[in-house]
């Protein structure tokens, strides 16, 4: 299959055309707002195309390791974490398509959510480790939307 130019490069060309040739010709404020939205969506798609499968794979490994720690912690919420972890492992597919990885990632996220709930009240190092996973996820999410994101608003 064709991989050069990359998906991100192709999207960048579309964004430039919209910004430099289409947008100046638009006078309707509602259509102009739509164009701004389209540009933001395209910008996020370019980053996702480059990174999302790799980021999800890395994050799942980290969640599985921390999930095991919480499951073994003896905290009141630990059994719920162990259940989610078992479900994640049992359901994990061998395929590498985006759809399969996204499905696995969703199951891993349930493990992470239960880790949050299990460690929230207890505090301590384990809570910090779990919160660190949230911070890591947030860093990737922020990379996707880009710096300085602001909502397109009423004019």
């Amino acid at each position, binding site marked *: 299959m064709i991989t050069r130019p990359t998906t991100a490069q192709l999207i960048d060309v579309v964004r430039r055309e919209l910004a430099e040739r289409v947008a100046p010709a638009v006078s309707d*404020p509602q259509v102009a707002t739509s164009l701004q*939205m389209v540009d933001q969506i395209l910008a996020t798609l370019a980053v996702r195309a480059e990174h999302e499968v790799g980021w999800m794979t890395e994050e799942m490994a980290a969640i599985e390791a921390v999930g095991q720690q919480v499951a073994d912690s003896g905290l009141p919420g630990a059994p719920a974490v162990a259940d989610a972890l078992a479900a994640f492992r049992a359901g994990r597919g061998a395929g590498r398509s985006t759809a399969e990885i996204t499905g696995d990632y969703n199951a891993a996220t349930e493990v*992470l959510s239960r880790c949050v709930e299990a460690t929230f009240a207890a505090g301590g190092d384990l809570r910090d480790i779990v919160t660190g996973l*949230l911070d890591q*996820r947030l860093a990737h999410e922020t990379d996707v*939307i880009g710096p300085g994101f602001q909502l397109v608003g009423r004019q």
Partner: protein
Amino acid sequence: MTDLTDPTDLAPRLQELLRRHGEPEVEVTDVRPISGGYSLLTYGFSATTPVGLRRYVLRVDPPTGASLTHTDRRAEWELLSGLTATGAVPMPAARAFDDGSVLGRPGLVLDFVDGPQLGAHAAAADGEERRRLAGQLAETLAAVHTVAPSAVPGLAAPPSWDDYVNGLIAAWRQLEADHAERNPFLRYVACWLETHKPPPAPLTLVHGEFQTGNVMIDAKGQMQVIDWEYAHIGDPRIDLGWCQNVAAFAPPDLIGLDPVGFCARYCDITGAPAEVVNPLTVGYFSILAGVKAFGALLGGIAAMARGENHLLTSAYLVSAEPFTHNLWMQGTRQLEAAMEALR
């Protein structure tokens, strides 16, 4: 139904609507869409009568499936016509309502505010003007929150403050359960809200979506509050909190300029005690308040994921998710540190 997005088709319908509301000799011209907002269609238009020319705004339901949320125009009309009669709230007067028999879809007509949005005005203002606007904003919020409950009989009150706040926290959890994918940030927020509740406050009329984009400045420099579709009886701090929450997306943050001074001014007018309304309790509500708007946002995104909607707005608002996650993480950490410092 004829497409209401065509302004030339709207003019005769608006004429008919105004005639039914006591303007027998009226000509409607200059119908123009007003951009912005994520739910209703909004148009400005001119109405010429023997008395003269006036500008109005039409807020009308979008076509089915073309909006992230659905709210009730009749309920909005009943609230706004009641508030118009009291004159106690700075807002454009409500003039006419249509159940859809004239316009094709339910809508209402209000006075047009000839002036800028507070947010846009504040963004262009210098520091001194922003501080003045912040004081005026505190007074405007206080005016909304001191409306007598008897003026808004159509709004049902929650049984208690605990029911109100617990209901909102439960809504955060439900939001996550209903979404198209798991979201650990929503679960984190629900845990945090449950363990950091502030002291209760008396329930009042609240706007429900109070932010500087929903406040206009009229020709006399007075603030006029618009877009009341989410008004309800609740904790008044939810309006202050939401205002500060939205300012993170669309600065400047007028409350954040001097949060202690802002809350003190608000307390002076409303009589609320400082331990109830202060920067920390407003901060709590800035997070709690997000459930309705974030729910609408996530609802649209989830519907798109299920293939049930194809709205550009929903696709665009996927970018608002990480921004909001960041606000929650930063906000809860800062509030926890400030609460800890006070212990």
